[in-house]
Structures are given as structure tokens and as C-alpha cells.
């Protein structure tokens, strides 16, 4: 399996008035054309890991890494222009809530075309055709109609499909999905995941799926990384989640209520200071 992404000792920190906050503290992993889940609770550094790879760390944040390589390109040395050329074209990102991540004053079709024409020299008619094809690929029943709609005119599930269409239209090799279904209703969640699953498989993309939901991630991904306080505490194949060894992973799995299992009170996580060392 060829390596798409190679991350070694990635660190992201933010200077604040009260000292330096280390959001990511030495994360290492490699990714091939597979689905990798990154799981953790708020503040575990999972989103900042994704953003650092994408090149979207806030201006004042400091990134250091022994190695941050995408397809042989050293991302730590890449200029802003080089990062821009990669972003959207070869590495794409889906964010949590389509309400905030789509441009509210631009129709959905134009936003998809904008992405495409930024990265490829295609004509108007060709761009429109490809945008419509992409909308059809995310199972939007009437692409012509949705093409002309504005983000506030569509539901959350539809908005997230449009977001996926926009991110995949330029044919990226790596897709980072940061909580792509957390803002959606459960039944819609499954539809969107199904679409994502098929597109990632068909196009042979690498996927990093960032989520707080351990169960969801393990049902969707091939491999899972569990993060706590900016570090990876455990890495395991998704199918062997039940054999997780780290007490944090086990605690996370246990503390969720399950239908048909009567446990009162629920087991709670006993956080150990040594996990964060």
C-alpha cells in the first residue's frame, strides 16, 4: 500500500495570555488509500490535527513536525501558494455544519463551480455539467433545481451532500471529514455516510474521519486512532475495537447508554493524570 500521508511528531501550539496551550503534542501516523478514524473528546486535538494537515491552523498557531509529507511533498516547507494549490484540489475537507461552512450569498451550483475552476482550466459549460454530475453522484434527486438554490433553502442533509459534492468535484486524493454528520438527524446521518462510503471506495481516496463518536467511527473506518489531551493513546483496527486496551478507550466505549442494556448508574470515566503525560 502506497503511503499518501506521513505524519511524524506533529505538534500544534497556541500562545495565549496565560501561557502556551499545546493542542497537539507529538502525533504520528501514516495513511494509505484507506479510511482512518480519529476519535477523541472536545479538546483532545483531533480537529487541530486535521487542520494542520489541511493548512488551516489559525495564523497565530505554531506547527512543528519532524515529518509532514503528502505524496512526497513536504508540507512544512511548502509556500502559501503551494498549499493553496493543494487545498481543494488534492486535499479536501468537509466540515461539521453546512449552515456555517457554505457561502450564504452564493448559490450551491456556483460554489461547486468556483472550486472546480479554481483548480482546473475548464469552460463554463463543462464546469456546469461536472457540477451537475457531482450533485447527482451525492444522490440529489433533482440536481438542476438544487444547483440554483441558496444554502438557506436546503435542509441540513441536503446542505451536507452539497458540501461533499463541492469537496469531491476536483477529485482530491485525500479527504478530511471533521464531524461530517454530527449536525444531522440520525436517519439522514446514515444516508450521508452511505454516500461518503461509496464515493471514497469508488475513487480510491484516503479518508481521515474525525469524530467524537467512537461507535460511529468504528463502523465506518478501517483503522481508528484514539486521542486524549493532544496525544494518541491507542491505535487499533476498527474491527477489534472491543479488544481496546487503553482504559480511556474502554471508558469511552462503556459510558454510552445502549438500547436494551440496563446499567444504572452508567459507568463513568475515571480520568487518570498519567494518560495526559
Amino acid at each position: 500500500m502506497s503511503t499518501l500521508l506521513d505524519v511524524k511528531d506533529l505538534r500544534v501550539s497556541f500562545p495565549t495570555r496565560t501561557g502556551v496551550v499545546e493542542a497537539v503534542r507529538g502525533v504520528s501516523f501514516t495513511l494509505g488509500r484507506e479510511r482512518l478514524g480519529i476519535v477523541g473528546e472536545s479538546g483532545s486535538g483531533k480537529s487541530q490535527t486535521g487542520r494542520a494537515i489541511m493548512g488551516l491552523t489559525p495564523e497565530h498557531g505554531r506547527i512543528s513536525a519532524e515529518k509532514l509529507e503528502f505524496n512526497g511533498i513536504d508540507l512544512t516547507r511548502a509556500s502559501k501558494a503551494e498549499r493553496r494549490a493543494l487545498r481543494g484540489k488534492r486535499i479536501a475537507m468537509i466540515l461539521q455544519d453546512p449552515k456555517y461552512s457554505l457561502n450564504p450569498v452564493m448559490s450551491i451550483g456556483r460554489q461547486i463551480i468556483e472550486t472546480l475552476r479554481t483548480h482546473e482550466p475548464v469552460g463554463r459549460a463543462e464546469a456546469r455539467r461536472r457540477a451537475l454530475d457531482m450533485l447527482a453522484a451525492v444522490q440529489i434527486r433533482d440536481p438542476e433545481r438544487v444547483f440554483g438554490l441558496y444554502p438557506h433553502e436546503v435542509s441540513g442533509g441536503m446542505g451536507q451532500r452539497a458540501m461533499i459534492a463541492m469537496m469531491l468535484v476536483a477529485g482530491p486524493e485525500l479527504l478530511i471529514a471533521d464531524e461530517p454528520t454530527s449536525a444531522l438527524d440520525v436517519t439522514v446521518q446514515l444516508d450521508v455516510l452511505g454516500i461518503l462510503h461509496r464515493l471514497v471506495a469508488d475513487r480510491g481516496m484516503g479518508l481521515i474521519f474525525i469524530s467524537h463518536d467512537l461507535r460511529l467511527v468504528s463502523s465506518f473506518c478501517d483503522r481508528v486512532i484514539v486521542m486524549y489531551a493532544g496525544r494518541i493513546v491507542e491505535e487499533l483496527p476498527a474491527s477489534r475495537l472491543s479488544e481496546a486496551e487503553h482504559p480511556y478507550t474502554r471508558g469511552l466505549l462503556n459510558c454510552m447508554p445502549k438500547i436494551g442494556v440496563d446499567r444504572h448508574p452508567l459507568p463513568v470515566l475515571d480520568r487518570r493524570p498519567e494518560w495526559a503525560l
Partner: protein
Amino acid sequence: MTAALAIDGLSVVFDDFVALQDVSLTVAPGESFGLVGESGSGKSTLLRAVAGLAPVSDGTITVDGKPLGDKRDKAFYRQVQMVFQDPYGSLHPRQTVDRLLLEPLAIHGFDNSESRIVRALDEVGLGASFRFRYSHQLSGGQRQRVAIARALILEPSILLLDEPTSALDASVQAEVLNLLEQVRAARKLTFVMVSHDLAVVTHMCDRLMVMQHGQAVEQLASADLAAHRVTQDYTRSLLTASEGFRRNG
């Protein structure tokens, strides 16, 4: 035995939009009742209508045998308390925890406010050291505990819970759910709990109602749901969805 809460043919209409249509339910004293549905199903609207935060267009709401009018008396606002979803939005950002807890006591003319505040904080597992903090100095779980303390400090008999844990991390959710169960047992409270998460509702509630498009789909016991004894297709699809993603081939 009179029901703690009885709702009959309740409708809520905003201009032309019917948010809730002809919904009826009864909750016995000390029972924990769940409302499940997706966004726009009317589950929160039902709770807000009971609390007096949404206009009742038709139907009746009865609390402890007393029908509620358009204007509720002060005793109602003591007896029925609500906990909201967003712990960041439901606490006053410029008031200390002490001030937040004092306000309801002052409104309802309770005495011994000093000892009540200390006791309330203790009951939700926050020590006295939290008393003079502002809400931005607390984590999400701690804020939700303060919101629960604020609801309990008036010694209500009914607690309306609108997605009380959906903004929290899974491990914090477990702690807050345990706290809620514990205070319900200790104070013999009646719960009406709204959630989009079937697992949370079946864990917390004895009976539940599934809602869709402002209407009741079905009412059933949590045990029946767990055993897949459901009659409606919509409930079944929610149940399947809550089991997580399955790769087909």
C-alpha cells in the same frame, strides 16, 4: 391517582406553520417520560408549550389535576422547572453561580437562601468552591450541573429536560445522566425528557413517545422498544439508524 402532567389534544401553531398537532399524553407522578424525534418533529415545542414558552393554540395541559390557563400563576413556575440543551447559552455570562442560584429564590421568596445555595451545589456534585465563579470559568458539564442546581433549588415536582446532554462529551453525558437519575430517585421527581438519541431516552425513561412532523407516531414502553416490539415503520427506522452505520458489501 391524578396524573402529574396530562396533555390533551395539544396544538401549537406559529402563523401558518403547525408545529404541533393534536398530541395527547399523560405522565404519572414520579414517572420518567421521554420524547424522541428528529429536528422539526415538535418534541421541544411540546416541552416549551408546557413551560409556557410556546403559544397553546388548542387543547389542554393539566398539572396535578389543575388545568393551566394562558397565564400561569407563580406556583406553577416553582413547581415546573426546565433544563435547556445549551449549557453555554442558558447561564447569564455576567452573573456568578451564587447570583444565578439566588435569583429564583428571591423571586419566589424563599428563606435561608445561603444554606439552600450551598446545599444545591452540593447536591449536583459541585463543591462550595464553585459558588463565586462565572459560567465562563466552568466546563460544559459543570455548567449543566449549575443549570440543574438552579432548577432543583425551587424544589419542583416536575423537571422538563430539553436535550440536557446532547452538547456534552460522551463521558460527561454519563455523569450528568447519572446525576439526573440520582436526584429523581432522591426527590421523587417527574421527568419529561426530550432527546434525539434513542439510547439516552430508553436509558432514562420508563415510557416514551416517538414524534414526527409535529404529530405523535407511537407511545411505547422503553422495554418494548429495546425488544423491537414496535408497530410503526418510522420507529423501526429510527431504531435501525441508532444502531450505527452498516457497510452493505
